[in-house]
Structures are given as C-alpha cells and as structure tokens.
C-alpha cells in the first residue's frame, strides 16, 4: 500500500492505495464519489471520464498513484456553488440529453473538456469529440444538441430524431 494525495473538486483528498488501484476505484470506493461511473471497465465507454489537470481522461484506465499531486475534477464538482445545475448539465436536462443517465457523467465531463478548448464547436466537432463516450439510449442526437445549446449556439435546426 502507498499513500496518494490529490485535489478532487478543489478539496484535498488522500488515501492508502495499492499499485493496481484505479483512479475510478479510488474516487468511488475511497472518496465515495460514485458519480464517476464504470460502464465497461475496458476503456471503451467513457462513463468514467474525469479531468486530471484539466484534461479529460478515462478514470478506469489510469492508476490512482499516477494522479499523485494532480487536480482532479469529477461530476460532483460540476454544479454551481449554490447547488444549481451548471450550463452543460442544465442543457442536458432542457434538451433531453439523457434517458437512463448512466453515461451522463462522462458525457458532461467530456463536453466540459471540449467547450474549454473549443467554445463554439460545430455539430461534427461535437460528434467527433464524443467518439470515446458511448450512450446506448439516446442515439446521441439530443446529447449533441445539448452541448451545442450549452455553447450558446442556436439548436433549432438540429435534427430531433
């Protein structure tokens, strides 16, 4: 076992982990931050996407010890200070960007990473960026629409079907 310390959603967090402990396991099982979902556990589905030092990564494919000293952001830290949904989260609700909701934490974290680098992405850029985030319910249209809306763009012309 080894000690690991990092900042998670702005707060210091530390714990004892094994070499093989995944960042997703550390967040969920030791910190109780179960918003980071583990869907496939094979690095394909993106439900576990978090930000490490500002970059979107798959928490199920990174060792907790690799995040030593890092600033980690998870879905639990995304809401506004008053607890209301942030712009991206609200857009997912407004545009029905989810059904079962399992993929949503990863979708929101990927969307946040995209909009940080590219504040006005095109529909195609959003679809390309979400290549590593799988949703088995929505068919993606409303997710794409929500992200476009969150970036302040008109979404009235985007197909609803």
């Amino acid at each position: 076992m080894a000690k690991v310390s990092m900042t998670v959603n702005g707060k210091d967090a530390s714990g004892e982990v094994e070499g093989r402990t995944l960042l997703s396991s550390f967040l969920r099982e030791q910190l109780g931050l179960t918003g980071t979902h583990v869907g496939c556990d094979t690095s394909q589905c993106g439900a576990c996407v978090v930000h490490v030092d500002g970059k979107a990564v798959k928490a199920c494919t990174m060792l907790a010890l690799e995040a030593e000293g890092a600033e980690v952001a998870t879905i639990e830290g995304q809401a506004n200070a008053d607890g209301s949904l942030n712009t991206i989260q609200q857009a997912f609700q407004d545009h029905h960007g989810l059904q079962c909701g399992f993929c949503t934490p990863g979708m929101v974290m990927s969307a946040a990473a995209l909009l940080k680098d590219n504040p006005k992405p095109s529909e195609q850029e959003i679809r390309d960026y979400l290549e590593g985030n799988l949703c088995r319910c929505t068919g993606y249209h409303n997710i794409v629409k929500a992200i476009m809306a969150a970036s302040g763009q008109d979404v009235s012309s985007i197909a609803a079907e």
Partner: protein
Amino acid sequence: MYEFEFEKPSTVAEAVAALADEDAQALGGGQTLIPTLKQRLAMPSKLVSLTGIAQLKELSDNAGMLTIGGAVTHAEAAEAAAGPYPALADLASHIGDPAVRNRGTIGGSLANNDPAACYPAAALGSGATIVTSRREITADDYFRGLFETALEEGEIITAVRFPVPQKANYQKFEQPASRFALVGVFVAKYAAGVRVAVTGASEEGVFRWREAEAALDASFAPDALDGLSLDAGGMIGDLHGTKEYRAHLAAVVTRWAVAAAA
C-alpha cells in the same frame, strides 16, 4: 489485475534502475497496458511509470527535424506537430478518442507495436529514429513483427526523431467498432525518395511497400500506382476482412494518401 508494485521515477537513470528487477515493466500512458492487465494477460511484478520524467516530455523542432519525447501524449504531439509536420499531427489527433489521446504516449505505442496502431506507420513512413536509453535505432531496424521490436529488456524509448518531409499524408480506414486501422497508409515524400508504410494489414505488423515507393519516386501521383498490387499472402484475415480484402484496401488507401499529399 494481479498485484504489482508501482514506481514513478523522475529521471531516465532511475527508471532504468527500477526496470532492472525481474518482471518489471515500463508504463507509458497505460491505454493498452492497463486494459491488458485487467484481463490478466500480463503479470508484471512492478510497473515503472515513465510519465514523471521531464526529459521524456521534451519537444523540439530544429532544421527540419521534429523530436518528440517518449512520454509525450498523442494530444501533445498533435499540438507540437501542427506547424512543422501537419501529416503527423493529423495522425496523432485521430488515434483512439480524446481521453485516450490525453494519456497515451508515442513511446508506449511504438514499444507495443500493435499491428493496427497508427504511430508505427508514421515512424516507418518517415524513416524516424527511435532514441532509447541505450542507443539510436532507425525505424527500418526497429519494427520486427507482431508486437515485436528491437527494444531489449529494460530499454526505454526516450525520444523519436522525425525528419520532416516535403509532402506527406496518412489515411486510415477504420475498423468501425474498435476505430483501430483496418488498414492505414502513411506516405511521405523526401528529397531522397518516397516512403510508403502500411499498418493494420500484415501479420508481420507495419511494413514498407517498396514497389509503390519506386513507382512514386518516378511520379508522385496516384496514377503511378496503376497496375501495382500487394500479395494477399501474409496479410491479416479475420472477421473484419479477408487477406485479399486487406491487400486490395491497402492499395486503395495508398492512392488516397498520395492524392491527399500531392
């Protein structure tokens, strides 16, 4: 995953020392190795992370030579190559998905030498030099077959040097589920000649298509490839495509790359 120790050294010398232990293995971004460990397909006693070594994160662009440190991620490489070597940047920015590109490293990709990976095509197609903790290896000597390279036990890729070509392009025909290259072709035109590297197709991993290179030396245009074909023997045949399909596809994709580069 089986248990293993974890070390994160800050210098190449420390990493080399840590890798001297029996069954120790280097860890780049882990985008292949961690899924492999989860399936219990490997049982290292110790993982030595290379991502904390500042030297392996260095980038430089000098006199037509782009050097990318071994622990540079695909996303970082794409950004660094965008100006000096756009074809390489394009390749790096289409590996995996954004989250994978934020962790996966060039050294990890080349050390693994997956037969369907993109970077081996860029390295071989550019005649790159693989710089390690012990020596320098030309790309022509480096790739030795399926998941096989010239790397010895405990040897670390510290950097990759890419000579910048006059023209280049990489075309990837993706296997739609994995998004790995069903076939990918990297074409680069240098003053010394054209290089054509094919990934995804052969049971021996990435290879140079010499006949196409000779034809393109004479005329750098898709028509120069008329009548040339690859032998289906030795190609990968699986549920995604037969050997014949891959051989044909590699020739088609080569034409696309030449057309895009020319």
